[in-house]
């Protein structure tokens, strides 16, 4: 465990108006580590995740990504975001572009790839998630599960070093949760560093190297899945886990 952390946060604070959402979160994510964040709604776990790529700007504290302090105002966060893929609860696929264009837009625009290379990669990624036959369709007719699989490969097309998942299955119909979780499982198995905010306890238990339990804007307890799920120490963790289905 003497690897340098890929992401490190120091004392993050974030408020929305009078609502103090993050109350000093200091955490780290190691290369190739899979960290799940669980906790009741309103505990600040999504806000914490969204701080990691600066979609929310913390008022206090620092975030280091691959050794660079991205909370520094002089740092161009756009460059670092290219290395941090994000998957949203509501998919946020681009409805005016075809499935293929959803994937190739950013790599081509940000000069990482030629159009041809990007197209080839898009087809390969779509094959991997079983959407190759939809390449030239607009995403409007896709199911929720298909949209989320598209959103995942759209992020992967930037060849990120870390993937951030913000409740990736919360907005899905139950029968589509499995197909999305399978894609994420394969991804983390391949060694992708991942931070996953999720309500799927069974999934968190299965894929995570480490689980963080957050409540009231703080990380209350962290440990291996078996420590958190089988022998939780903190009464709030115990209370939360007793209320959710695993």
């Amino acid at each position, binding site marked *: 465990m003497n690897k340098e952390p890929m992401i490190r946060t120091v004392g993050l604070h974030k408020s929305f108006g009078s609502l103090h959402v993050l109350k000093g979160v200091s955490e780290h994510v190691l290369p190739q580590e899979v960290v799940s964040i669980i906790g009741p709604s309103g505990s600040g776990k999504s806000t914490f995740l969204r701080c990691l790529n600066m979609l929310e700007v913390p008022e206090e504290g620092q975030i280091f990504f691959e050794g660079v302090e991205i909370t520094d105002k002089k740092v161009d966060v756009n460059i670092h*975001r290219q290395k941090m893929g*994000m998957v949203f609860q509501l998919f946020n696929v*681009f409805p*005016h572009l075809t499935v293929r264009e959803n994937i190739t837009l950013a790599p081509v625009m940000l000069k990482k790839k030629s159009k041809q290379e990007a197209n080839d990669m898009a087809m390969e990624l779509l094959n991997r998630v079983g959407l190759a036959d939809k390449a030239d369709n607009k995403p409007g007719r896709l199911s929720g599960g298909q949209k989320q699989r598209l959103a995942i490969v*759209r992020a992967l097309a930037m060849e990120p070093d870390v993937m951030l998942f913000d409740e990736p299955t919360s907005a899905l119909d139950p029968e589509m949760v499995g197909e999305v979780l399978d894609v994420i499982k394969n991804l983390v198995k391949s060694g992708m560093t991942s931070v996953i905010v999720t309500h799927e306890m069974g999934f968190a238990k299965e894929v995570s190297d480490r689980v963080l339990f957050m409540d009231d804007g703080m990380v209350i307890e962290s440990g291996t899945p078996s420590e958190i799920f089988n022998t939780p120490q903190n009464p709030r963790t115990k209370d939360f886990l007793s209320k959710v289905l695993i």
Partner: protein
Amino acid sequence: MSFITFCENIAKILSKYWQVFLIEGVSYTLLLSAITVFFGAILGSLLALGKMSRLKLLRGVITGFVEIIRGTPILLQLYFGYFIIPMAVPFLNLTDFQAISIALIINSAAYVSEVIRSGIQAVDHGQVEAARSLGLNGRQTMLHIILPQAIKNILPALGNEFIMIIKETSLASTFFIGDLMTSYLKVKGATWLNLECLLIVGVIYFVITFTLSKVVAAFERRMRAGE
């Protein structure tokens, strides 16, 4: 006056003055409306951008301007423009038509800026977040993600603005600048047949705006179908 004489009068007016209505009046009204919407859309876009900028002062000035335009009668604004615009730029020797066009453009820009701003803000904020999370900067996100989606909200609304403007240009006849309503004033002056002339002009306005609103609606349907 019987209905028959009324119809005969209309036929007489049309046979003698149809060019005044259909050529002069209609073309001036359409020209004035097209100029207004075209430049109004350009100026309105700039206003909308300014209103979404980070500069507080700029936002305040634009908001104040839009509120004043929306809160005062357009006829009053046209009077203001008619007197003030030629005075403000005397070296340009503006004709009445040009001065009134500018006044209409300013009025339309205020409304169009709201159309554009709300069209842009109607795009789901998740789209911005997704684009930014991929590493696109603010400008790239606006150009490639937000505007292409906002245009679907904006274009039909601009079409409707065009239809509104066609009706509003009738107020420009106060300054006798040759639009369809000016044709009414001219022909009425020559024939003293008030109601007949009004009816002719009314029918022409209705045919134009009704046709255009059908065109806009069809256009809107096609754009929605493309999604």
